[in-house]
């Protein structure tokens, strides 16, 4: 295996990025509940405290609000903190610090201070996580000027975005979906940055644009394969970064296909999917028709039982069916093959 073909997991990619940046820059440190425990945040912070000492990778009291403020204060003082949250839901405890302080300190001082901080929020989906351990809150942060939001899907982007996030001079909400952690992908060993604000066309197609966010990119790719069997050629886009958002790439794709299906890992109302449709529409201003649809969590809190969970989250199948319908077909006329989402089927904990 040549170096350039090296395949590692998403979790390892995060780990490697963090380790490399900590080696390069002594101002980088990692903290949060459990970052130095034996599970090392699904491996992504594993043993960093051994390599860099307990001052640069430390556990904290259960105090998301103050610990966020501590990170902001440290960032203002020249450090580059990475604050890790086992569940993105916990960010609800520190919205005040993130929105009122992190997003605004640079502006309120007219640039005299900056807040270079990474906030890692892990979307907790696996099974039976229920209403409070399954939420993705990217739209909140997309709403607020002063915060960047990235949601890489591939190990390559996980590494490149993490390095870019650490080096960025602004608070960056770094959204990770737990079902991506074991995904493998080719990732260069040397450090590199994936610049924010550039969407990726993961797979070209002429008939319909399917934009997935985070783990939904994986499902969208699976849906593409299903759709191939009925002669539909889907283009799959991963925005990678949500704020800034690369609307140009999405727009070009939609202008080609005339159809846009957005699949989010959250609810739709006032979500990323609404913003993308609104921006596409504002850009086009009726210059050309296009069809647009959104898929995401059902508009309910997340139920715990599997029979409802299976319906709650979009899947390759529900994406394919919606795309099929958008191509003018009757959904009743097609039963897509069952595709197993291995990362979901094989999940057995650590819960």
């Amino acid at each position, binding site marked *: 295996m040549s170096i350039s073909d090296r395949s590692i997991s998403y979790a390892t990619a995060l780990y490697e990025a963090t380790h490399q940046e900590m080696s390069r820059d002594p101002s980088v440190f990692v903290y949060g*509940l459990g970052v130095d425990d034996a599970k090392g945040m699904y491996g992504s912070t594993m043993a960093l405290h051994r390599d860099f000492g307990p001052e640069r990778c430390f556990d904290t009291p259960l105090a998301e*609000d103050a610990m966020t403020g501590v990170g902001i204060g440290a960032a203002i003082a020249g450090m580059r903190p990475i604050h890790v949250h086992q569940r993105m839901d916990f960010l609800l405890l520190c919205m005040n610090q993130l929105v009122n302080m992190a997003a605004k300190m640079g502006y309120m001082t007219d640039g005299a201070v900056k807040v270079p901080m990474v906030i890692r929020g892990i979307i907790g989906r696996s099974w039976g996580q229920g209403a409070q351990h399954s939420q993705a809150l990217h739209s909140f942060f997309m709403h607020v000027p002063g915060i960047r939001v990235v949601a890489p899907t591939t190990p390559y982007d996980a590494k490149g975005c993490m390095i870019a996030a650490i080096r960025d001079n602004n608070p960056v909400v770094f959204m990770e979906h737990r079902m991506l952690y074991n995904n493998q992908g080719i990732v260069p060993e040397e450090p590199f940055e994936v610049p924010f604000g550039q969407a990726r066309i993961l797979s070209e197609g002429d008939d319909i644009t399917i934009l997935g966010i985070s783990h939904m990119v994986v499902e969208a790719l699976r849906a593409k394969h299903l759709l191939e069997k009925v002669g539909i050629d889907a283009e799959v886009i991963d925005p990678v970064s949500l704020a800034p958002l690369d609307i140009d790439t999405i727009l070009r794709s939609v202008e080609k296909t005339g159809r846009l299906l957005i699949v989010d890992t959250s609810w739709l109302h006032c979500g990323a999917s609404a913003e993308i449709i609104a921006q596409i529409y504002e850009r086009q201003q009726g210059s050309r028709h296009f069809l647009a649809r959104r898929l995401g969590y059902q508009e309910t809190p997340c139920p715990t039982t599997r029979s*409802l969970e299976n319906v709650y989250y979009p899947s390759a199948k529900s994406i394919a069916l919606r795309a099929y319908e958008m191509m003018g077909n009757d959904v009743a006329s097609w039963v897509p093959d069952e595709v197993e989402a291995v990362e979901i089927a094989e999940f057995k904990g650590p819960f």
Partner: protein
Amino acid sequence: MVNPDNVADVAALYERIYLIRRVEEEIIRIYPTDKVKSPVHLSIGQESVSVGVCSNLRSQDIVYATYRGHAAYLAKGGNLNKMFAELYGKVGGFASGKAGSMHLGDIDAGMIGTSAIVSTSIPLAVGNALAMRMQGRDVVTVVFFGEGATDEGVYHESLNFASLKKLPILFVCENNFYAIYSHVRDRMPDANICERANAYRIPAKKIEGGDIFAICNAARDSLAAINAGEGPQFLECMTYRWRDHVGPGEDRHIEYRPDSELDRWIKDDQVARLAGMLDAATRDKIESSTNSRIAAAETAAEESPFPDPEIMYTNVYQ
């Protein structure tokens, strides 16, 4: 006052604590079959806290607890069949499978649904106590939480307000030393939880060793003080979790805590202690009837169907 020399007292406690222990052992047994496809946080080793406190409660009293709530739910008299069906994600559960293990609760049993976000039920319990006062109802509110919850700001805000308003509420901290794999000494400069409660002018008592009789009696005294209008009371019950933080497994291999510590607590098992105080006949009777109840609950849960997709959309709004 619970009397260790009174067989009826001991048998009543044993019946409750044995049920809880056995239910969780069954969960461990069943778990690998993937019937309970949800995180479980077992109380094994900690049952004496819930049982000791709840043995003093009346049916109208209200309990708030945490995601580690099996023990509190059963100690408060929760419905075993509904609980198993809920763990299995079936319509027979009290929440049709929408809740699962982390959100156990049943208004009929006087336990409100629990939260998986540490510390967030505590102010709700305070609000319940406030409502009881406003409604002039003779109800005591009890809230269980781990020592980790005392790190959170909302805990402090809640204690301050409860004390300010002298509300009829009993705070029960189940101090099992750890929050996941993090020892309390790595989270507090000094684990002086009672002193901190005192700083809010809430009388607090620490009970060592998980001693079920001491917990019973301390809870009784605290409840008496609450009923006498003395405002909130606080118990810090030292206890220990035998299993991993989440899931059915043991966790010795993780090596975040000394084996000897765990072994010491296992030696002091309160379930075994109570069992040893009863004659074989009494014990057998309790145990066999409990085991039949559990078996029946499992069967009922098996037989209950999974909810249809339409159930998803109900009760988003009330």
